[in-house]
């Protein structure tokens, strides 16, 4: 086959437009959000959490019962049209109690994640990044906080402060980020030796930029997993603290308290344990789906 000149056509050589960036510039976070929206499971998780929040906020207003209304004639009933999820051993409507309980348990869950994602991540990031003496000191502090028995300062808090949710938050705040700090520190120790960190440093990025823009995003996998999986243990720690006397006063009860109370009678009235446990599990599934989606969305390697 022969080629002739007319077979070719000059392209429109427009230098200006060639220099322009076709794809609109998106920041890291915009991009992450865009990718999160595309993830179907993550959106299911997100909407489930929103739905649970709506139920927690508005459900009790709609319910004909309050969390404390007793009717001893109707104790330990199974599901009925009157009490959708049955009643507890003082004849209180279980659905209403679960909706009220959601407020406490979700607050605790959110707080625990928030603590993990801020204090834990930053503390661990700094410790791992600087290494050496700073790492040694920071990790020894973590060990000290880890080793002092929680129950001791919980009792002390109980003596000093009025009972209430804020005590739970203080007690959790003291310890709930320690595991995360260690995980992030371990990841950062390994990641900071990667080539892209060297590259970033060579173009003059500050330490802070390296930690927040490179190291933490690349450690997102373990971070998200740790943050989501710690939610139920925070919820049950709250139940334990309430049991000891630090938390919200009876008759108000969180999911954890509902579940632990029902454990005493689960042979005879299993649904009293089952429903709060289901509520916790659904929340956990939602957080995990969202977490997985977030991990994918925040992963710089998957950025296209």
């Amino acid at each position, binding site marked *: 086959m022969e080629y002739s000149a007319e077979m070719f056509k000059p392209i429109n050589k427009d230098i200006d437009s060639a220099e322009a960036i076709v794809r609109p510039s998106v920041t890291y976070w915009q991009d992450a959000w865009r990718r999160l929206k595309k993830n179907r499971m993550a959106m299911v998780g997100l909407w489930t959490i929103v739905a649970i929040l709506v139920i927690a906020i508005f459900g009790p207003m709609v319910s004909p019962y309050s969390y404390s209304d007793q009717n001893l004639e109707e104790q330990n009933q199974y599901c009925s049209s009157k009490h959708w999820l049955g009643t507890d051993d003082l004849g209180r409507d279980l659905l209403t109690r679960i909706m009220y309980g959601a407020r406490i348990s979700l607050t605790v869950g959110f707080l625990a994640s928030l603590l993990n994602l801020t204090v834990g991540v930053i503390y661990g990031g700094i410790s791992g990044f600087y290494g050496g003496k700073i790492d040694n000191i920071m990790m020894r502090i973590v060990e000290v906080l880890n080793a002092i028995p929680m129950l001791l300062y919980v*009792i002390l808090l109980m003596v000093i402060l009025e009972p209430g949710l804020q005590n739970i938050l203080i007690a959790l705040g003291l310890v709930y980020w320690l595991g995360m700090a260690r995980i992030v520190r371990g990841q950062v120790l390994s990641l900071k030796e990667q080539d892209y960190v060297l590259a970033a440093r060579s173009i003059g990025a500050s330490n802070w930029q390296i930690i927040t823009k490179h190291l933490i995003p690349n450690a997102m996998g373990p971070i998200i997993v740790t943050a989501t999986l710690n939610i139920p243990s925070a919820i049950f720690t709250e139940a334990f603290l309430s049991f000891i006397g630090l938390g919200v006063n009876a008759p108000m009860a969180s999911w954890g308290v509902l579940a632990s109370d029902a454990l005493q009678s689960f042979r005879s009235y299993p649904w009293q344990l089952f429903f709060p446990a289901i509520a916790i599990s659904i929340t956990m599934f939602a957080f995990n789906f969202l977490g997985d989606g977030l991990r994918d969305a925040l992963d710089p390697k998957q950025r296209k």
Partner: protein
Amino acid sequence: MRIRKSLLWFACFMTVLLIASTGFAAEKLAKKQILSFNVGTEPSTLDPAKSTGIPEAIIELNCFEGLTRMDENNVPQPAIAESWTISKDGLVYTFKLRKTKWSNGQPVTAHDFEWAWKRALAPETASEYAYQLWYIKNGRPYNEGKLKDPSKVGVRAVNDYTLQVVLENPTPYFLQLCNFPTLMPVYRKVVEADPEGWFQNPKNYIGNGPYKMVSWQHNSKIELVPNPHYWNRKKVGMERLDLYLVDDIQTALSMFETGQLDWFDAPPAAEIERLEKQGLLHKSEYIGTYYYMFNVTKKPLNDVRVRKALTMAIDRQTLIDRVVRGGQLPALAYVPYGLGDATPDKDFRKIGGDYFKEDLAAAKKLLAEAGYPDGKGFPTLTILYNTSENHKKIAEAIQEMWKKNLGIDVRLTNQEWQVYLDSRTQLNYEVARAGWIGDYLDPMTFLDMWVTGGGNNDTGWGSKKYDELIYAAQAELNTAKRAKMLHDAETILMTEMPIMPIYFYVNLTVIKPWIKGAFRSPLGFIDFSTAYVLEH
């Protein structure tokens, strides 16, 4: 005759679970006479002089024997003491001892008792229940360290088999106390060799009771076998007792259902109905009262009308049937059933009767008189209870009753056990949950605690008249006069109402149907010496 009379004094209440005598011929004994019982928790100590808890006492009372032993009717019967005489003024007891042996074959003598009691009283022994020996002359000053000379303490071995005891006051329940762990004899040689830990090694745990310890696995199990040297050995038919140390009641229930346990106490409230239907639940008398204390130093509880209104405005029977469960008795007075009056065949409670009625209209009227018509203007009241599922349920139910019936707002607070005890003694509460289990079978064990400034009177309440009555009753020899004083004292207590009685305890226990012959005293102790196992 004096002996019979003093015995009769206590003859009153049946707490026998199952009596060995009936239908014995028709029953066939199991080949293996082994019984497993859940004591409930790891004993803090098994030194009878130092222990305080019921689990410890159950073990000690089966490994040791005092001067007397309680029979199934709660009457002290001769045990190591064969007989005794009591002086006319009720102060001097002379015990004649049987010739018996320790589990290592050595003789038990009156010197062993004298030594053991003085040891329990010695300040350096630091026995918590030493006050069970304060009834003895000079027992208290010796224990307090004010008297240094132990020979002045009112217990003396006249010879090897005669023990003379001089009391401070005539104490009608002294023969009962002789069955209390603190008054058990101990084997001097092993105790002196290791005063702190002699009981830890089963080989050193030398006793004189129906059983002896063969092994102690901490936090797990204690095994007892019959003591071959026990003076009444032929009475003991068991081959072995397995005493489990399981804390969790759900676990104990599971072990019962899988056959690992034959007997455990205090089943979970939710299971009581089912266990009762299956015929496994047994109820027996338990000398104790569950009540709420009012802090009378705080407004509005300083007004007796408010205290009375609160007391009258709850429905005890509903609370028992629906919340507590287990057939407790509603308490409309403070001293429980099962304690003797002027004569032991009369019940102190039945003679005293009820002190108030549950009456909503009257309660509302009292509250209005106090200045809070329909609860208007009544400040929010806080109920304090110690961390426990059952206390929480009861508090929630009472909160709702007060709210509905009187229109007052109530908050609940729970505290960890020791914090709660601290709040109580500091009077740092408004209404607090409490309970009292008797130390011995006499109304005094319930009433003497409410004297002004008493160590257990955590209400801030006090009455001179009340104190006088109690102190007079402690020194009174005439039983009729004494009973009258105690009734008068209870009347004062129930008129001023620093406490709100809720219910009288019962002991709930779950036993396999083939376990027979053991019985439990209303103080919670169990005598396994007559137990036997039927074929099953």
